[in-house]
């Protein structure tokens, strides 16, 4: 038998549960119904059990079914099983079918997801950490700007985390619409303000046509001044600062890039303006 599952948390867990009942079944994964139809047309097989494409799935119940009530000995900051699967599915190298096989191979031992004791387990654990870190970096260093009153930001992550970041930004700014552009799609948060669904996905080319207010912000100079004012010259610690904000993260926004440049090159403690004001005195 062939089992086709959707590449989301519910789909992966349903496929794993199915594998426990029919260990010999073959797996196909699909992003959505269109993708599934295309794959089924290609294979020409009709006897396919389709999982995760209709209705909602109680993922908590499924996790209990697959792993029992055993609590994972996960480390601080690690997500639970649902979060773990969700993170891995966002990784650029994730392969859902392999992930389902791995979950099944754990034989109900949830420890194996987090312990990294097998080669695949270690690989997936690292995938999960990669995605987690990328998301955290985005929350730290991405700097949105106003376009027609819509708070917009372009993200350039190797992993599919634009929607997560959009939700985070929308929660922080519930009174304005948010757009997070990821390649040729844009995630819209608080879309109700611009006549869209509260949370939706549109082609990135449409973002420019959204209009909310004439709010704008030109705070770059203000930020530079604030950033410089917080520095205690006696405590300069370039290595530590570099370690905390590596170059890769600095390139996430112009603001962070300038901050990083100041770390690398130092902040001049006097400018031409200082000489002018001194001579005037």
């Amino acid at each position, binding site marked *: 038998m062939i089992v086709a599952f959707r590449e989301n948390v519910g789909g992966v867990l349903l496929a794993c549960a199915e594998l426990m009942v029919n260990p010999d079944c073959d797996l196909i994964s699909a992003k959505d119904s269109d993708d599934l139809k295309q794959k089924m047309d290609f294979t020409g097989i009709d006897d396919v059990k389709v999982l995760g494409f209709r209705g909602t799935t109680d993922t908590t119940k499924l996790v209990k079914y697959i792993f029992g009530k055993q609590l994972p000995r996960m480390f601080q900051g690690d997500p639970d099983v649902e979060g773990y699967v969700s993170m891995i599915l966002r990784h650029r190298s994730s392969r859902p079918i392999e992930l389902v096989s791995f979950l099944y191979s754990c034989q109900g031992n949830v420890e194996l997801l987090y*312990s990294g004791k097998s080669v695949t387990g270690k690989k997936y654990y690292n995938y999960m950490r990669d995605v987690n870190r990328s998301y955290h970096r985005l929350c730290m260093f991405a*700097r949105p700007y106003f376009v027609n009153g819509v*708070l917009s930001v372009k993200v350039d992550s190797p992993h599919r985390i634009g929607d997560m970041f959009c939700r985070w930004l929308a929660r*922080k700014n519930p009174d304005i619409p948010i757009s997070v552009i990821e390649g040729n799609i844009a995630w819209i948060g608080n879309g109700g303000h611009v006549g869209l669904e509260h949370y939706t996905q549109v082609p990135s080319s449409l973002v420019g046509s959204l209009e909310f207010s004439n709010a704008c*912000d030109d705070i770059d100079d203000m930020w530079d001044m604030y950033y410089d*004012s917080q520095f*205690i010259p006696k405590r300069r610690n370039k290595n530590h600062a570099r370690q*905390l*904000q590596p170059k890769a993260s600095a390139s996430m926004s112009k*603001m962070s890039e300038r901050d990083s440049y100041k770390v690398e090159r130092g902040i001049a403690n006097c400018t031409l303006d200082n000489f002018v004001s001194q001579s005037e005195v």
Partner: protein
Amino acid sequence: MTLMERMRVLSEGTKYDSCNQSAVCHAFGPDGRCIQLYKTLMTNACSGECTYCPNRCGRDSVRASLTPEEIVKITWSFYRRNSIEGLFLSSGVIGDAERTAEKQLEVASLLRGQGFTGYIHIRVMPGTPKYLLEEIADYANKFGVNAETTSSLNYSEICPNFDYKNDVLQRLQWTRDLINKKRQEEGFKGRIIGANDTQFVVGALQEPDREIIGTVEKFMDRYELRRPYFMSFDPVPSTPLENNEPSPLWREVRLYQTSYLLKDYGLTANDLDNVLDDNGFLLDADPKMLLASCSPDMFPVNVNTASKDDLLRVPGIGPVGASRILQSRPISSEKELARMGVVLNRARPFIEINGKRQTNLFSFAGVSA
């Protein structure tokens, strides 16, 4: 003065204030310190005469103020750009503590009134009335008063306008009660209420570290203090203490380390006697490593059988690492410990795995790492 100039003057006035809220850091200064809040004074025109402070009244310096509306506007601008998580608001004393708190309250209520869901930390002045503290607690995530030093006598020497017992200790107690009340209140608007915190100026007077550590322990016990901040004294020209020696930065670091030992490692001030010299001052060495070196009979600790308290005594193993070890036993190799965040170079001489002592050339040669 332009808005930018006033902003610079007042932000510089808070650069020594530590107020990390352990959420998302948005930038790191060239000194490696995280920037996550817009830190500012409302004004640096202060009616207080604190002997160490650059803003003390009568000192010849540039004075500036920001209106509540200006602070609110700047905070929003930075917040929208995801450059900060919130606001840290302190101030010089505007006439008296009551008037200052009223202004601070105005900022907090304006922000919340405009739907601001970010973090607000208000550093109130000594002597702030209880009714204003209660109102501030309705809006702020964190609020508190700086203790600055360890006793009434010391306080009267550096902050002659205020009374330690009434203006500081009483406020610390009210803050503790208000935090507990707010945390218990159901549906407190989804706000996180931070624990009690305070700041000490280290080295302005001759108080030994033993006194500071004892005070921190007392505050943790009495006022549920979770986070003491330490600021090294640096003499400011044209102040009464301008000729005093600056306090070494390492002293601040060692005090932070000892405060963590009190807070997270279950140690008491008495346990830390071994890391102090005869005059009660800390040595410039990791206090946990010193403690371990003073008790060789307690080591090596078997990572597979030791209790959490014993694991916590091992240098290189922190509370998170100890919990991970307890959760992940049996441990069969150093590699596993490293994955749990244990600093092996420090821990190695003090642990054994499966009966095998983990040693290195340093410990073999009798030299502490």
